[in-house]
């Protein structure tokens, strides 16, 4: 139990006659494995269906059942979907954490709790709503062993009643969640939901200072997690070889992909698969298979998290040096070592940029939303084949495993681009080729695929020293020539990496540089700084690495630039140190958060104010 002291008796703040509309966060504290995920998703979806922008964050333990878990739903009429620190409504279902959860709340918050926990004794400055869940569940769920799972749906009914969420929308969300096949389960849960609603109606006439009102800000939008969005991107990118080894938080990326590919990537005539997905024995094998596939000409990928990235290090050096296209999704989690495997971090950026021994550099893409997961997955395959090199798509647990509201994905406009591959006809015309010769000045040679029916097609791929014709060499000049070409190729990538999103605030002295999921907190913080402190801040969101000229220009035009990193060691800033001259670096400041939760705007704003000395 918490060692926090019970707060001194304070009276409730006076309830405003105008409730807060469509701007609040709900935290549901439950026990892992109790089926609360369904109740939480239904609640979130109901608000979404009422047209209100919403986001859901699952904070779960590395455990199957029994440990505490929290789900936070944020509704925001302004469309902020980043995490919000302050909790307005707590649903306390977990006796283990209830006391601490309640003590952490700000004055005036709402607590819906399991009656026997007697949480109302803890504080006098909160709105308490006791609900006898065990009593309510009995009549709606005759089968005793199912009660544990159905019980959670009662709080959906209570919350819906208190916040004026339309029950029709709750019902719709519930039916969608269970699907047609589980109609009976849906019925049972609906009963529980209604029981909660009725109970609240009868017993809580005082209501709460928050409510949901219909808006029209979610029309046409979808709800999806980043991993599923990446998976869809891969399918539409025409991925053909997929290898993986299960690891949180990346497993669901490939599991989603398996689901989609089984539905949509079998030849309608023969029923045969137009792809191969292999669960490998470890990450060494998964990256090895992906590289073998890329070498042979497949659109090849693997997905992993930090520990897998560490294991793949040796093979990535081979991919870089032998110039083999492959796409690696890194859904980052908290390291080092096993770290906090179910919490989020941008902890692999620095290692990944230069993964493997010797001189290596790798392009990275930084999606910040499901839409970008979808489009960048496709860009990653084109990029990998264009530049014949491993490409990393860096997402994180927050983006990968949480549900996000997103615009519907656009169907790809451009045809799939397979890069410089010579076939037998080309070889007839050319007479031959040199695998690692820079014919076009972009550092990228032409390759042939095994199986090409031509006497001039073959070459020998090796991780040892090689010359332009892929022959073995230990010569100083050959080695330097080849390494310089690879460095040049990396420079050329700068012209092709997705450009950053730049928002220049007029007269801004300071700017933000951030990437990935930091985007939500930084955008909201820009508004907070302006509205609360009168500080204007510009913002550059990176979409990839290597850095482009835009970043230099952005730093140059501001007095101070805050580089936002969700890691302890300012890894993005560290990468800039490798690239930039002293004058630019002198303008950079670091803003870091590394506690494992999704970054929130208040943390960013407070830190800016501290560093700016305001």
């Amino acid at each position, binding site marked *: 139990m918490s060692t926090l002291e019970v707060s001194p008796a304070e009276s409730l703040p006076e309830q405003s006659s105008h409730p807060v509309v469509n701007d609040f966060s709900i935290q549901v504290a439950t026990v892992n494995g109790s089926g609360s995920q369904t109740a939480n998703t239904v609640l979130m979806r109901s608000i979404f269906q009422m047209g209100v922008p919403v986001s859901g964050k699952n904070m779960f333990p590395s455990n199957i059942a029994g440990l505490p878990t929290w789900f936070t739903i944020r509704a925001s009429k302004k469309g902020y979907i980043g995490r919000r620190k302050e909790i307005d409504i707590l649903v306390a279902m977990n006796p283990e954490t209830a006391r601490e959860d309640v003590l952490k709340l700000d004055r005036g918050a709402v607590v819906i709790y399991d009656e026997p926990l007697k949480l109302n004794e803890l504080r006098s400055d909160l709105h308490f709503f006791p609900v006898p869940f065990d009593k309510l569940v009995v009549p709606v769920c005759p089968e005793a062993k199912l009660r544990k799972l159905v019980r959670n749906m009662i709080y959906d009914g209570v919350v819906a009643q208190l916040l004026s969420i339309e029950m029709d929308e709750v019902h719709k969300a519930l039916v969608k969640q269970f699907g047609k096949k589980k109609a009976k389960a849906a019925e049972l849960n609906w009963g529980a939901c209604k029981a909660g609603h009725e109970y609240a109606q009868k017993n809580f006439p005082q209501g709460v200072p928050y409510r949901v009102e219909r808006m029209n800000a979610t029309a046409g939008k979808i709800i999806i997690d980043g991993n599923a969005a990446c998976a869809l991107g891969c399918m539409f990118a025409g991925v053909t070889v997929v290898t993986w080894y299960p690891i949180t938080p990346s497993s669901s990326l490939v599991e989603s992909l398996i689901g989609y590919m089984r539905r949509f990537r079998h030849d309608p005539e023969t029923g045969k698969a137009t792809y191969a997905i292999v669960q*490998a024995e470890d990450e060494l094998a998964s990256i090895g*298979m992906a590289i073998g596939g890329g070498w042979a000409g497949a659109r090849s990928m693997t997905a992993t998290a930090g520990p897998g990235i560490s294991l793949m290090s040796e093979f990535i050096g081979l991919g870089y040096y032998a110039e083999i296209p492959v796409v690696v999704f890194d859904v980052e989690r908290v390291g080092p070592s096993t770290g906090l495997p179910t919490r989020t971090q941008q902890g692999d950026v620095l290692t990944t940029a230069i993964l493997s021994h010797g001189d290596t550099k790798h392009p990275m893409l930084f999606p910040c939303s499901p839409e970008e997961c979808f489009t960048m997955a496709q860009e990653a395959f084109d990029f990998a084949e264009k530049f014949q090199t491993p490409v990393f798509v860096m997402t994180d647990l927050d983006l990968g495993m949480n549900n996000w509201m997103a615009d519907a994905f656009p*169907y790809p406009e451009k045809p799939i681009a397979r890069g410089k591959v010579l076939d037998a006809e080309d070889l007839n015309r050319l007479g031959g080729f040199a695998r690692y010769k820079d014919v076009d000045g972009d550092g990228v040679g032409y390759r042939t*695929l095994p*199986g090409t029916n031509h006497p001039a097609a*073959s070459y020998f791929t090796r991780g040892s020293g090689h010359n332009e014709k892929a022959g073995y060499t230990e010569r100083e000049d050959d080695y330097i020539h080849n390494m310089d070409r690879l460095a040049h190729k990396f420079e050329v990538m700068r012209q092709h990496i997705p450009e950053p999103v730049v928002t220049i605030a007029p007269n801004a002295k300071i700017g933000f540089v951030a990437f990935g999921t930091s985007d939500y907190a930084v955008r909201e913080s820009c508004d907070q700084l302006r509205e609360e402190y009168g500080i204007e801040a510009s913002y550059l969101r990176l979409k990839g690495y290597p850095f482009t000229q835009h970043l230099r220009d952005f730093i140059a035009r501001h007095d101070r630039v805050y580089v936002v990193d969700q890691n302890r060691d300012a890894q993005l800033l560290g990468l800039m140190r490798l690239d930039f001259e002293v004058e630019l670096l002198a303008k950079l400041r670091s803003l870091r958060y590394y506690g494992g939760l999704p970054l929130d705007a208040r943390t960013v704003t407070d830190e800016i104010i501290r560093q700016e000395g305001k």
Partner: protein
Amino acid sequence: MSTTMTPPPKKVNHIGLEVLPYKGSKTTLCAGCGHNSISERIVECFYDLGVNPYTVAKFSGIGCSSKSPAYFLGLSHGFNGVHGRMPAIATGAILANRTLLGLGVTGDGDTASIGIGQFMHLVRRNIPLIYVIENNGVYGLTKGQFSATADLGSTLKTGLANDLPPFDCCALALKWGATFVARSFSGDKRQLQAIMKTAIAHKGLSVIDVISPCVTFNDHVGSTKSYSYMKDHEEALQELDFVPFFEDISVEIPEGEVSDVRMHDGSHLRIRKLGRDFDVNDRFKALQALEESESKGEVLTGVLYLNTEKPTFTDLLNLSDDPLTTLPESKVRPPKSVLDTVMEELR
């Protein structure tokens, strides 16, 4: 093709190629190295069977053995990967293009130490691949340390005795799912040819453990992987003959205990028993025979197991007949209606 076609009277194989296109660059291994003999057998067998070299993909890891793919089949693509991880590379490449004939060459360090995990999973998956272990019991390229196939009590050049028992790669392959398992000796030309040809015709995983003496670091008295040790201790299970599909099976039927195994391509492996009661379809007997000969100090060679029925990994994945690498965009990018369906489900 026209550039390699030569007019008669030069000797050509049944697809009209001379032996030259089957050769590779000059070996840089030591003179007398067993690996060079194996390279020669590979050249002969691929030539004899008229395999189109453009359809072959060569794979290796790191070590002396893994250098050798540069010394044969110069017209085939080759991939010299990282130490012990050749199975992963080969698996990925073969899934990408199932029409490739995969030929992996590895050593005992590559397979039995750093790569034993990948080796076991390759076996478990029955990947269609010829997997040749050039087994000399020693790390050659790092100048003479024991490998995990070195026999208990065998000694290094320095006199240091090995105090750990060896892994028997054939026993591992037999136990966990390889569909063609054989052991040979680099000095046994005829047997190795028949085994190599059988592997070329076999549609699943072929594991061929070839004792291949290291003349520099492991050919002394006290070594159990030397030429002289093998001459004294090799115990052949059978006399083998491979009859390719394009040759008449009816000729040269030998007298005595002879049986034929029909391969998928119509070729036959002709097996004449040598005294011992042995059935190449019987995995348990093969394991038993390996145990018995080990206890007698013999090195059992020949075909230990052959199963032409078990589905390969590509079969299990229900892979498209055409290589995944060359499927057109229309086959690998679903139409807009699919995206619309998925979006609707997520609304």
